[in-house]
C-alpha cells in the first residue's frame, strides 16, 4: 500500500474509490461506504467534533519521558491506520483529523490531557494510553465524560468498561495457552516466576500460579516467585536463586529497561537457551532492540502478534509501516494492537451509522476485522478481543520465529473464575 503519493490530485479520487472498494470485502461490511450522505445532525447527536467533512479524534500517548520509547510504536501505528482510512475516504465520508496530546509518562498529565480532549475538543474517540497506571488515571474521566478509548497494551485484566475497547490481550489470553504449550512441548514441571513489581506482573503471576497449581498436570509446581522494582538493573541474586532452584521453565514479566540488564546478566552467568527454557510475556521486537538479539536468542515469548507472522495482511502492514517509518523500524505486539484501534472504531461507527459513543459502544461487540495483521479479530461482549496466542522464538537478528499458534481464537476473560 503506497499512501505517500496519494496527494497526487489527478489520481486521488480514483485511488480512493479503488481502495475503498478493495477494502469492503476486507472489512466484511459491504455497503457501508455510502455513509457520506448521512447528515451530521443524524450521525452526531452528542455534540462531538464532527462536521460534514471531518471528524476529530484524539491520540494520547507519552511522546516524552521514560515511556516514550515504548509508546512511539503505538503512536506511529495509529497514525498509519488513520492515514490509510483517510486515503480510503475516511469514516462515514468524513476525514479523520487527529489532535495529538503528550501524556509525558506522567499519570496526572494523562488525566489532564484526556479531560482536555473530551471536554474541550469533544473528540469522537481517543487512541491512547500504554501503562496500566495511565489507563487507571484516565478511566474515570472517560466514564464520566462518556468518551471512547482504544487501549492497545496487553494488560492484567480485572477491568471492563463501556468506554474502553481493549485491543491488546488480557492476562489469561496471553498466559494460559503459553503455559499449556510449555508443558506439552517442553515438558515443564517446575516454574520460576519473575516480574517487575507492579500490578500487571503481580496479577499475571497470580494467574500463572493458579494455573500451574490447579490446572496443569499434577506435579507441576512453582519453585520460586520474585519481584523487582521498576528500573532494577542488578539481577545477580535472582540468577543465583534460579541456578539453585533449577526450574524447567523461567516465566518472566520484567518490563522496560530492566530487561536489558536481565538478559545480559543471564547470558554472562551461563544461563543460555541451550541449557534453560525461558518463556516471557513482556519482550516484544521493540524490547529486543535494546536487549540485543544475541542476548535473547533462543528464548521464547508468548504474544498474540510477531512481526514475522506469515499472512497477506501482515505482509502489507509491515511493508506500509516500513515505507512510512523507515526500513529499520520494528513492530511489536502492542504496535500491532494499536494499529487495530482506528480500524475497529471505523467499523463500529459504520455499523452504528453514528459517531455517538453510546451507539458505538453498543455496536462494538461482534465486530470483526479481517484485515488485522494478526489475521482475524472479533470484539467480545466484554469489549476485549478474541485473538490467537502465539509462541515465538527469538532469533539473533532481533525477530521472532513463530513456532506455535493456538488453533482457536481465545476468548477474553478479564475476570477469570478460579484465578482471582
Amino acid at each position, binding site marked *: 500500500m503506497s499512501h505517500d503519493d496519494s496527494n497526487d490530485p489527478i489520481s486521488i479520487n480514483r485511488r480512493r474509490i479503488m481502495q475503498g472498494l478493495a477494502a469492503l470485502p476486507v472489512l466484511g461490511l459491504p455497503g457501508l461506504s455510502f455513509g457520506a450522505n448521512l447528515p451530521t445532525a443524524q450521525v452526531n447527536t452528542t455534540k462531538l467534533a464532527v462536521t460534514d467533512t471531518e471528524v476529530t479524534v484524539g491520540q494520547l500517548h507519552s*511522546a*516524552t519521558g521514560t515511556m516514550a520509547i515504548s509508546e512511539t510504536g503505538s503512536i506511529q501505528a495509529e497514525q498509519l491506520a488513520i492515514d490509510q482510512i483517510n486515503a480510503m475516504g475516511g469514516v462515514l465520508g468524513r476525514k479523520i483529523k487527529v489532535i*495529538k*496530546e*503528550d501524556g*509525558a509518562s*506522567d*499519570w*496526572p*498529565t494523562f*488525566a*489532564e*490531557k484526556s*479531560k*482536555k480532549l473530551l*471536554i*474541550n475538543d469533544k473528540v469522537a474517540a481517543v487512541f491512547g494510553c500504554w*501503562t*496500566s*497506571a495511565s489507563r*487507571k*488515571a484516565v*478511566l*474515570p*474521566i472517560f466514564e*464520566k465524560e462518556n468518551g471512547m478509548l482504544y487501549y492497545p497494551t496487553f494488560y*492484567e485484566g*480485572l477491568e471492563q468498561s463501556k468506554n474502553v475497547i481493549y485491543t491488546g490481550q488480557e492476562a489469561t489470553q496471553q498466559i494460559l495457552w503459553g503455559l499449556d504449550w510449555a508443558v506439552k512441548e517442553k515438558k515443564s514441571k517446575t516454574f520460576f516466576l519473575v516480574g517487575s*513489581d*507492579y*500490578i500487571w506482573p*503481580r*496479577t499475571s503471576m*497470580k494467574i500463572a500460579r493458579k494455573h500451574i497449581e490447579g490446572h496443569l498436570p499434577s506435579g507441576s509446581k512453582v519453585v520460586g516467585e520474585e519481584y523487582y*522494582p*521498576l528500573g532494577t538493573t542488578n539481577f545477580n541474586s535472582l540468577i543465583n536463586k534460579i541456578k539453585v532452584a533449577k526450574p524447567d521453565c523461567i516465566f518472566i514479566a520484567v518490563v522496560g529497561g530492566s530487561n536489558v540488564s536481565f538478559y545480559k546478566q543471564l547470558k554472562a552467568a551461563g544461563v543460555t537457551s541451550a541449557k534453560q527454557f525461558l518463556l516471557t510475556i513482556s519482550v516484544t521486537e521493540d524490547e529486543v532492540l535494546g536487549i540485543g538479539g544475541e542476548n535473547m536468542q533462543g528464548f521464547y515469548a508468548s504474544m498474540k502478534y510477531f512481526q514475522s507472522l506469515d499472512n497477506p495482511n501482515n505482509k502489507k502492514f509491515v511493508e506500509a509501516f516500513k515505507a512510512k517509518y523507515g526500513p529499520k523500524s520494528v513492530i511489536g505486539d502492542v504496535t500491532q494492537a494499536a494499529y487495530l484501534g482506528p480500524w475497529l472504531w471505523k467499523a463500529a461507527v459504520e455499523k452504528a451509522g453514528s459517531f455517538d459513543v453510546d451507539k458505538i459502544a453498543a455496536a462494538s461487540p461482534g465486530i470483526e476485522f479481517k484485515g488485522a495483521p494478526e489475521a482475524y479479530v472479533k470484539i467480545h461482549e466484554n469489549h476485549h478481543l478474541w485473538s490467537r496466542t502465539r509462541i515465538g522464538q527469538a532469533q539473533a537478528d532481533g525477530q521472532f520465529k513463530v513456532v506455535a499458534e493456538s488453533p482457536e481464537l481465545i476468548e477474553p476473560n478479564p*475476570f477469570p473464575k478460579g484465578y*482471582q
Partner: protein
Amino acid sequence: MISKLLSSLKTWIDQRGLNGFIILAILLAVVFPLAMDSFRLNLVGKYLTYGFVAIGLVMAWGYGGVLSLGQGVFFGLGGYAMAMFLKLEASDPISTKIQSTPGIPDFMDWNQITALPIWWEPFRHLPFALLAVLVVPTLLAFIISFAMFKRRVGGVYFAIITQAVALILTVLIIGQQGYTGGVNGITDLKTMLGWDTRTNSAKYILYFVTVALLLASIYGCQWIQKSKLGTLLLAMRDKEDRVRFSGYDVAMFKVFAFCLAAFLSAIGGALFTLQVGFMSASFVGIVPSIEMVIFAAVGGRMSLVGAVYGTLLVNFGKTYFSESFPDLWLFLMAALFIGVVMAFPDGLAGLWESHIKGWLARGRAALRKPKNPDAPPSQIVQPDADVMTMQEIGSPPLARSASGSPRVPSGAGMQVSGIQGQSA
C-alpha cells in the same frame, strides 16, 4: 510630627503589602472564573494546589533559609490521606461486588488482600481524614527537621536529606502496592460524603474553596512575616550564629519554618486529590519536589504572591506548550526556566519590584517633599531592641537592597541590625 510621618508610612506599607494580595485575590476569585470555561478553571484549580507548596517554600526557603527538595512528600501525604477517605467511600460493597472481596479498595483485591488493613479503618471518617491531612505530614516534618536541626545539620545537607526522604517514601509506596495502590496510585475517586466531586458545579465549588484557602494561607504567612517571628527567621537565615548567641533557639525556628511549609503543602495535596480525582506516587518523588522549588524560584522566593504567579506561569506554560508543540514543549519549558532565572534572578516578584520601585519612589517623593522635607525615613530607631512595635515590623516584606536581597527592617534593633551589611 514623627508619629504622623510614621502613620502615613505605615498606611503606605500596608497598602503596598496588600496591593499585590488584593490584585491576586481579584484575579483568582473574579477574573479567572469569568474568563475561563470549567475545564480551564479546573486546571487553574489544580495549579493553585501547587501554589500552597510554593508559598510554603517561600516561608521555609526564602525566609527561613531552609531549602527543602522533598516537598512532594508532604503534598503526597496530604493527598493520600484525602484519597484514602474518598477511596473507601467509593469502595462500597455494591459497586465492588465483582471483586473476590467486595467492600475493600480495588487495588487491595488485585493484590490478594482479603481484609481492610487496620490502619485504613479510621479513614472511613472524614474528620479523622482531614485531621490526618494536616497532622501526619506536619508531624513527619517535625521529626525530620527536629532530628536534623538539633544536630545543627543544615543547608545543603538538609536539602539532600529531604531528597532522600522523598526517594524512600516513593519506594515505600510503590513497594507496598497492596496497601497504597503502588505505581497506579489511588484512582477512581468519586464522591465525598455522597457529594459527586466530578460534576461541573462541584468543580466550581472546589475551585473557590482552593482560592479561599490559598488566600487565607497567604494572609497568614504575611502576618507571620510581619511579626517578630518573621524578622527572626530572616535574621537567622542571614546570620544564624548572631541569632543563636543572642539567646534564641535557632533550631526550633527552623523546625517551625519547615513544619509550616509541610503543613501548607499537605493542604495543597488534599485539595489536589479532590479536584483531580486521584493521587499517585508520581507526586512524592524527587522530580516533582524539585519542580515545586522551581515554581517558587520563578515567582520569586521572597514573595508569597509572586510564588503563586510563578506556579501559574510555569503550569500554564507547561499546558500551553505541550498542547501547542507536543514535540518541542520540554525544550520550551527549559528555555522558560533558564530565561527567567538568568534575566530575573529574583523571579517575577523581583521583576515587578524593580519596575515598580522607581515609579513608587518618585510618587512618594512628590507626595512627601512639600510636607516634611527634613525627615529622612531611615531614622526610625527604637531604643528598646527587644520590643518591636508595629511601625518597625510593618516594614514591607518585599523590601530589598539594591541587589535584591531582602533586608531586615531597619528598626529591628542593635542585635540584628548588623545583618544588613552582610546580606547583600
